[in-house]
């Protein structure tokens, strides 16, 4: 995928980013300082400023970018391995749910600093998330459902992942393959048939 091509960060940047993610998972964004990150990465403060001249904000931007790259390349791999539409949808949902639910830094921020992340992704700003996911996934869905409806289908499945991940249900766990498959077979595939039929 082009996302992980030439603009991929260098290994030293990645080391700082990984250290920062560990700090955020422990203390949150507000309390993490560049000193903490330097210590965690065993790197000098001067080096961090050389790598991220914009300081903490630039580091946070780089983290968001590289984590999204990582997410989408993982998703692409699951899509590439799926033999048919049902498996593609199930694998995509399971991967996305686990990536969100197991992301320790993200989970810390959602639990203790929701005011930092929610304004970027709620109501009108949800466009950002839904559009990014559906633009990315649509080409993989197009051979199965047609290029015209693929973006909508991708957005539909993204909505399901978000709702079942962020507000867990009693009896549906889209991070569990069997549960995700039942959801796809029960509610999504019949809907796809009626969408594609038109």
């Amino acid at each position, binding site marked *: 995928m082009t996302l992980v091509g030439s603009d991929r960060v260098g290994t030293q940047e990645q080391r700082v980013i990984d250290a920062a993610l560990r700090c955020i998972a422990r203390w949150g964004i507000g309390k993490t300082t560049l000193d903490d990150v330097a210590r965690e990465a065993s790197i000098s403060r001067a080096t961090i400023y050389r790598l991220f001249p914009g300081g903490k904000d630039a580091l946070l931007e780089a983290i968001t970018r590289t984590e999204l790259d990582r997410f989408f390349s993982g998703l692409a791999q699951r899509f590439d391995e799926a033999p048919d539409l049902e498996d593609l949808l199930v694998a995509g949902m399971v991967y996305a749910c686990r990536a969100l639910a197991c992301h320790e830094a993200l989970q810390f921020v959602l639990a203790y600093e*929701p*005011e*930092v992340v*929610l*304004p970027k992704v*709620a*109501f*009108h700003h*949800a*466009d950002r998330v*839904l*559009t990014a996911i*559906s633009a990315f996934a649509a080409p993989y869905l197009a051979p199965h459902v047609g290029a015209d409806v693929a*973006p*909508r289908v991708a*957005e*539909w499945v993204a*909505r*399901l992942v*978000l*709702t*079942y991940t*962020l*507000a867990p*249900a009693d*009896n*549906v766990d889209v991070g569990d393959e069997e549960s995700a498959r039942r*959801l796809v077979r*029960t*509610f*999504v*595939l*019949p*809907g*796809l*048939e*009626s*969408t594609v039929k*038109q």
Partner: protein
Amino acid sequence: MPVDLTVRERILEAGFACVARYGLAKTTVEDVARASSLSRATLYRYFPGGREQLLRDVIAWETGRFFGRLAEAVAGAPDFPSLLEEALLFAHRAVEEHEVLQKVLQTEPERLLPQLTVESERILVFIRRFLVPYLEREELRPDVEPEEAADYVARLLLSFIGNQGRWDLSDPAQVAELVRTELLAGVLVNTPSDP
């Protein structure tokens, strides 16, 4: 002010008016006391947690009112698909036209959204309970239970009320298509045919 309002409601209504005027950050207990013509002591008796609790409860109260209005608006729908269509059209418009919500989303999203996220669990339960009796009257596809279908439909409704994405939820034809496909194709044996 209508006489049948309880004291608690009178305070909440005044609190909502203050938020509309001053925003979440600047509204104080004194403002709400003045707006409700009650003493600070009375406010603290009803909201011992003070400002924080009062604002939290104002958000919960207005959210409840919003979904109460929605439920009322769609209750007379002739069948289940039409009920969902009306719900999406009504709620989409109501969110866009909710001046206080839009103002606070614009100016203080960091104060409102964490609270709304907490509320959303309660809202899901509310929508689910509202939908179950309707689903019990419909012929559902094999292996689909009313509770499960209600949860699925409630989640998508809430998702679309928050953001319409690639759909135009002010267009009845698109709303009908959305309901027929994504919301109900896996739920009902007979979904409405193409318009």
